[in-house]
């Protein structure tokens, strides 16, 4: 059972690595955002008067959140819909690989990409923008990454239920997450000048809590990072919601089948 699950993960990664569109959107795209934002806005300063930090300090965890969402939510939603419409999921159901084995295998593959992106984004942030990672926070930080990755994987599997075919997959997944990036400390950082509505909206959805739970690990003024229970609770709640929806509505057979 474990060997079958690991094998499923292995071939998902082989397939991912050879798929130019998937690697572009999951790896190149976040790196491009990181470099562009870092170059354009990164050297500005923000934060309270006695704790001014460079904007890149926030860009790095923001782009890391985007990377996690891309590697899990977007990546899984797209490739599971493609596999479903090609009849591959149905075919897998005809083998001794259990449904859970397939799901866990696919999520494991996404987690490998998440780990890769976490290291890549952190290293680029350090080398090009001088953003230091606080190694003493590695425990809390890793749990934040893992929690985010699992929650967004679940949501990615859940959203496949409303994606009718492969053509619709990129549009629906991107339309779901892109607006959220703008209110989630990923593309812009909310100042104190808004009515609070946008902040509240960002706090409600899981991307901003994920970005914020990663921020402290890159902030030189925070020596000991405390556990962001509230943010984790929001991410976990969305994750549970995703699991419940996926368990109920995930489809294994092509939806565009002639019948």
């Amino acid at each position, binding site marked *: 059972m474990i060997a079958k699950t690991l*094998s499923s993960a292995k*071939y998902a990664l082989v397939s991912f690595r050879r798929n130019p569109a998937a690697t572009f959107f999951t790896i190149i795209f976040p790196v491009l955002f990181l470099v562009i934002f870092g170059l354009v806005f990164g050297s500005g300063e923000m934060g309270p008067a006695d704790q001014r930090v460079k904007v890149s300090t926030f860009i790095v965890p923001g782009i890391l959140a985007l990377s996690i969402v891309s590697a899990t939510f977007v990546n899984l939603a797209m490739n599971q819909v493609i596999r479903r419409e*090609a009849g591959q999921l149905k075919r897998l159901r*005809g083998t001794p*690989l259990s449904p859970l084995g397939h799901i866990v295998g696919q999520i494991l593959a996404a987690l490998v990409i998440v780990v890769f992106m976490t290291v890549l984004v952190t290293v680029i942030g350090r080398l090009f923008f001088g953003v230091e990672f606080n190694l003493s926070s590695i425990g809390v930080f890793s749990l934040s990454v893992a929690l985010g990755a699992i929650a967004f994987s679940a949501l990615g599997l859940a959203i496949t239920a409303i994606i009718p075919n492969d053509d619709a997959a990129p549009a629906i997944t991107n339309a779901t997450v892109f607006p959220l990036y703008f209110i989630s400390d990923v593309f812009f950082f909310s100042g104190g000048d808004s009515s609070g509505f946008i902040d509240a909206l960002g706090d409600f959805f899981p991307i901003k809590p994920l970005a914020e739970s990663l921020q402290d690990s890159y902030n030189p003024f925070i020596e000991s990072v405390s556990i962001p229970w509230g943010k984790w609770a929001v991410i976990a709640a969305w994750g549970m919601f995703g699991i419940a929806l996926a368990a109920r509505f995930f489809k294994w057979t092509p939806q565009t089948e002639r019948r």
Partner: protein
Amino acid sequence: MSLAIEVTGLTKSYKTKSGDTIDAVKGIDLHVAEGEILAFLGANGAGKTTTIEILEGFRNRTSGTVQVLGEDPQDPSRSWREDIGIVLQESSPDRSLTARESVSMYASFYDAPRPVDEVLEIVGLTDSSGQRTKALSGGQKRRLDLAIALVGNPKLVFLDEPTTGFDPSARREAWKMIEQLRNLGATVLLTTHYMDEAEHLADRIAVINGGLISAEGTAADLAEQVKLLTRIAWDPAEVPAEAIPDLFRPELQKTTGELAIETTEVTAVVHALTDWATSNGGRIDSLSVMKPNLEDTFLRLTAGGEAQ
């Protein structure tokens, strides 16, 4: 003789979006012995795929009992799928993997798979095993499908329309491969809407028609069954319907305007016709007496339930 598949009184009804109920399968009994190759022959919409997907465990039945390799496919044990190989009607492999990787991946999902090289050899993909599947031709993809179905070393193989959409030479090739399954000792249930395919490949044919099995037997049995009914047709202007005994009920053909009878009593009908013509001083230039060919046999057996 032990049975690989045992089906009694199988029915399946669907609700359509408009709320109507469609009875796709209306009560099928089916027995397939171990090692036997059975063809499920029927037109599109006859209920072939619905039935095979119930046997494969992809759909739940409405009523009836089903045993496949001794288990109910609706509630199988964990090991049940180890012994079953499936070729779906429509599926395409992961485009980014090579043919060999695809087979290896599926092999890894079975406890006791057949060696990957051996399977590639069986389906004749050894030479193209290093190619990405997106570069394979349609025929090669179908072979890969079969390789994936065989790699688990199944006792029972389901093939849903394995050659639909193939040109004649690709079909011949596919047939050769399916024939090899017999040598491997597997039980095979295949669906097709080609009479010649069923005749060529199967030990036994079950004709499915409007959700029911309308005929069953070897190809020769079926041909015999229908061959007995010879079609006699003529122009009613030459001989009226009343000329022949009441026992026969000729039907007026809308398209040709002819009267036609399908019967075993060729002599009696022809005698009545010629007798009437002779005693009324007429001629019967339009008379035709036709024995059905293979194609007619199939059409007759599967024509929208009329044969029943």
